[in-house]
């Protein structure tokens, strides 16, 4: 079980002009937790229909790439004056259009290798599938054109109860005027529908120059409809929660087995030979309890009967 620390940037593109430099720059700016992102687009069935057999045989392993990691030596960290211990995660972003895509099931094991799983639903049907929890989702990154979706508030609420986080990237705001407008529109749309809760801010940086200092990001977030505290939480505690929930999802439901060992100096009445006799004892104990509870109920009934008698006699209710 790993935990995020410090400021987080949960999206640095693996298709980067210089990945190692970007990671080191992000760390030297003050971020401590970084996720390296790989984008995957699932082909829809209509396209691959004609080549179904070939695609199924060849594309099984090749659709989901192997996670990319960056090895940082202590000399690198010293060169960039990084004192805090970095936490580097892997993340996959899957964009797809067809909710009945077979690749999701097929490559489930390959997807589970990643620490964080993000989805880009490209239409309403996939959005509904992602939000209702039919597949494991940690982060939903919406396409910054709010006309694509029709989000209902109940759907959003249910996805928030399952600790799914929404991502807003900030580097498109820096590079492209058109994208900036659309991202501001998207964030205001999220503010309208869900009060901007469960939002994380990421960089989506494709080169080192797209990265910004954490406190500058907090100031950028004020345009996106987040308050000062909320924007700080968006790169701090909300991102921590997202990582924590993701690792809990990977781990699955916690189960345990009970082992009963008999100590030699135990009393005779509590001695069991093997687990079967213990189970039998438990069963007998339970039935005994049931009998007891039935007796109690009977007693209560009697009391009630008595009270009703009292009321009949005197006409005044006494407690």
């Amino acid at each position, binding site marked *: 079980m790993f935990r995020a620390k410090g400021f987080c940037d949960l999206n640095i593109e693996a298709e980067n002009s210089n990945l190692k430099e970007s990671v080191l720059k992000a760390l030297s700016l003050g971020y401590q937790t970084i996720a390296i992102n790989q984008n995957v687009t699932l082909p829809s069935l209509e396209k691959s229909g004609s080549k179904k057999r070939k695609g199924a045989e060849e594309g099984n392993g090749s659709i989901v790439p192997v996670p990319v990691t960056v090895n940082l030596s202590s000399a690198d960290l010293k060169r960039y004056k990084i004192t805090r211990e970095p936490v580097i995660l892997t993340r996959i972003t899957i964009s797809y259009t067809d909710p009945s895509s077979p690749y999701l099931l097929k490559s489930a094991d390959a997807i589970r290798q990643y620490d964080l799983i993000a989805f880009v639903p490209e239409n309403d049907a996939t959005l509904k599938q992602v939000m209702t929890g039919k597949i494991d989702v940690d982060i939903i990154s919406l396409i910054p054109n709010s006309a694509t979706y029709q989000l209902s508030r109940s759907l959003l609420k249910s996805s928030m109860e399952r600790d799914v986080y929404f991502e807003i990237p900030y580097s498109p705001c820096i590079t492209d005027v058109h994208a900036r407008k659309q991202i501001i529109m998207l964030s205001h749309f999220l*503010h309208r529908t869900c009060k901007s809760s469960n939002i994380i801010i990421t960089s989506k940086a494709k080169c080192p120059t797209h990265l910004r200092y954490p406190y500058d990001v907090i100031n950028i977030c004020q345009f996106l409809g987040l*308050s000062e505290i909320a924007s700080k939480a968006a790169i701090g505690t909300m991102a921590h929660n997202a990582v924590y929930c993701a690792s809990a999802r990977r781990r699955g439901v916690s189960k345990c087995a009970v082992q009963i060992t008999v100590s030699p100096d135990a009393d005779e009445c509590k001695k069991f030979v093997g687990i079967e006799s213990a189970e039998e004892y438990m069963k007998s104990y339970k039935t005994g309890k049931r009998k007891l509870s039935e007796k109690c109920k009977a007693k209560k009934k009697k009391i009630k009967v008595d009270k009703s008698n009292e009321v009949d006699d005197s006409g005044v209710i006494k407690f």
Partner: protein
Amino acid sequence: MFEPNVTEFPAPESHVEFSYHSWDDPKLESTFRQLIDEHPFNRKIGILLPGLSESPKEIKKILVDDTDYYHISELPLSVFCTPVFLEAFLQSGKVYAISCDARLDLDNVAALTPDGWLILLLDKFSYQELQLDGKLSAHILRRPKERYVVKVNLKENFIPGKPYYKKVVRALSYVQLKFNFWISWVPNDAEVCPSSIAKYFDDEGYHVAVRRTSLSSSIILNAYVPVIEKETSDMDLYKAEDILEYIGCSSLGIKLTEEGTSVCDVLNPKPNRIMKSICTVRSVGFFIPSQSRELIQQIRSVLEETDEEVLPWAAVTVYGHIDSVVTWNLMENSYSVNGDNFYTILITRNQVWCYKVSGPRKPCRFFAKCNKRI
């Protein structure tokens, strides 16, 4: 029309408290106690001496002599609860310890105040693992419920062998909370050397390093200096604020102008006069309240020795550690954009002006205000 209210960008809130006294005012002692003695963790001292070209040796001596402090790396908190430490250091002196290299706003931080309070500010996950009671941080308004304050008094009712002691020790040793600490110790008995705390931790096997306070000074030439009247029967609060602004600017080396520009409207306070030089002294270290008291006395004696034309007044600014958990009187410090907590004392020959600057006290809203009601 924007849905959330994004058109307003209010400046970060800060509180300034101001009071002024003459030197023979009986209330001065209580003001000093509240201002200086209840502010335990000081990181930096800045002194402004208008008129002097070089800082006096006596002042330098106070800042450099006997101001060493110790940096202990990766110290688990359960060390503070060992019976030996409790008896040898905590009960027989004042321990000033604060976690360094940790951010107040995101990381876990800890402090041990001279009153014996061990104060922790923890995130949600560490707090849930630690089996001690705590409170939600005072700077959180309803949500997100992420930061918790845990307070343990190590001086009162904390006796080895008792149930409460066992509970605290078990909790602190179960969750391995480790911090880098700055520590200094003032023993009650003057014959005991303050460095024995370093020896104790070194013998226990922790990495201890001695840190010296650094000293630097700079001079601004031919600058305006505001004139402070001898007798102020009716204090103008705007003037007091202007002078605080002036002290801040001069200690950063900024020359203020007489006329405002479109960029900056901070002006030189009036009345003023030109002086040849302004000397600023800066010192970075880990200062305890008694040292800043000593420094103020020393500056007062320097003022009385020199002529009024040469040195009209002096100002001392003591900056608290920005990532410290507590500020004055165990009040919780907040770090939203900055963690300012400092005080400035302006000293003339017959007056003392005290400024106390702290960050926002009200918890901030998590959700931005919107024009429509959702």
